[in-house]
């Protein structure tokens, strides 16, 4: 497993094109990986997950994958520094049940609705209320082998923050994603399930910058 950090140049025309269209951003990320043959989509085959994090002067992209990426084909002025690639093995080795970690996750927290008039057809809508978003994350934690601890105020130790809507176009259809960013702490309960979640991502829209779980030592409380 590899993790890349790209310090993006907001003045680059290539970056601005990608910023305006999440599908172009996906294609730029995937350009670092070789083509695959077979039925599995290339993103899934290489286990690619990415996220765009705003910083005080621009944006940073984090990209995780099974395959080692080659960023040589990136436009010359796409980044302000050389791409940093490092192995993710130390993080995977650190996974142990009971361990508390601080995390960040940009997720497409959605639910399926089944209105009467649509008769069995479900429509996927994003959770917009913070309480619903936290409930979604806690439910995902049950599936993926982690729990959200309780903070001093008695509430779950996680902060959902709104993220601007991401849009894009693919084959004449529009992509619209309303993600939510979770910052907080988690406690690992299941080694296998958690490793799986870390390597394959959480929730939907993984091609479009959602589902990458990044971990760090917990903040002192």
């Amino acid at each position, binding site marked *: 497993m590899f993790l890349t950090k790209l310090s993006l140049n*907001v*003045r680059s*025309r*290539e970056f*601005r*094109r990608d*910023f*305006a269209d999440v599908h172009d951003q996906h294609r730029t990320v995937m350009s670092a990986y070789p083509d695959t043959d077979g039925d599995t989509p290339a993103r899934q085959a290489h286990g690619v997950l990415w996220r765009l994090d705003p910083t005080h002067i621009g944006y940073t992209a984090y990209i995780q994958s099974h395959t080692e990426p080659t960023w040589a084909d990136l*436009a*010359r*002025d796409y980044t302000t520094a050389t791409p940093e690639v490092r192995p993710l093995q130390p993080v995977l080795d650190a996974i142990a049940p009971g361990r508390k970690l601080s995390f960040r996750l940009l997720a497409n927290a959605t639910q399926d609705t089944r209105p009467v008039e649509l008769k069995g057809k479900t429509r996927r809508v994003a959770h917009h209320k913070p309480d619903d978003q936290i409930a979604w994350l806690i439910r995902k934690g049950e599936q993926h082998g982690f729990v959200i601890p309780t903070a001093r105020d008695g509430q779950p130790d996680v902060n959902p923050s*709104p993220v*601007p*809507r991401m*849009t894009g*176009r693919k084959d*004449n259809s*529009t992509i619209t994603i309303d993600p939510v960013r979770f910052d907080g702490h988690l406690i690992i309960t299941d080694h296998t399930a958690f490793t799986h979640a870390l390597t394959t991502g959480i929730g939907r829209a993984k091609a479009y910058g959602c589902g990458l779980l990044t971990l760090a030592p917990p903040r002192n409380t």
Partner: protein
Amino acid sequence: MSTSLALCFDAPLQSWGTRSPGTLRDTAAEPTKSGVVGLLAAALGVHRDDHDAITDLAALTLAVRIDREGILERDFHTTQNVPTTLGKGHRTVVSERYYLADALFLVIVEGKPELLRQLSYAIDSPCWPVFFGRRAFVPARPLLTRTGLTNQPAIQVLSTHPWLENDPDIRTSESDKTERVPLRTVIDCEAVTAGAVLRRDHPISFTHGDRRHGHRYILPGTTPLTDPMINDGDQVQCS
């Protein structure tokens, strides 16, 4: 023969909202028709209630070329001491506002020559101040480009007009490239056109308390950024 008027929309911040007022004020990635019509009406001195004049302006064909994509900025905005509707006490209103930072657009309107000539004079000496979506977002350079009023259809102006980018570093790095990112375009089109997208920003009424919008169809596309477009643009100076 068709006549077009080319305008440059450049400002540190712009905001082109498409959804109804509320606590979430979004912005589209390019100028909306209601926003452009509102700006032209302000330049002409057309009143909000003057439906005929607004209908005439809204009938113009709008074409936009995105010369520089904007970066989306979110502003967590609070207004304190807002009187409650009952007039007893005050409350704090919280809203989220989205802006486009450093965006640059080539906006072209096509239509009747008399109206466009009138508009080009009005843009030069506007009746009321013109701004990009919010009163504070004033233009960073003159709106009339060197091309200004031409006897070309809007679609031709889109693909030939000099690039408006005025940052020397970006211009140099772009002219050195062999493969360039094409410029994104958005043009008014018929509903039956293949690939047409619906937008709900066709202004019908700007009257206070009775703002109404209809729908229109746009065709998203791209136009290549050619060497002449980059080189001619060097002469575009702020006058």
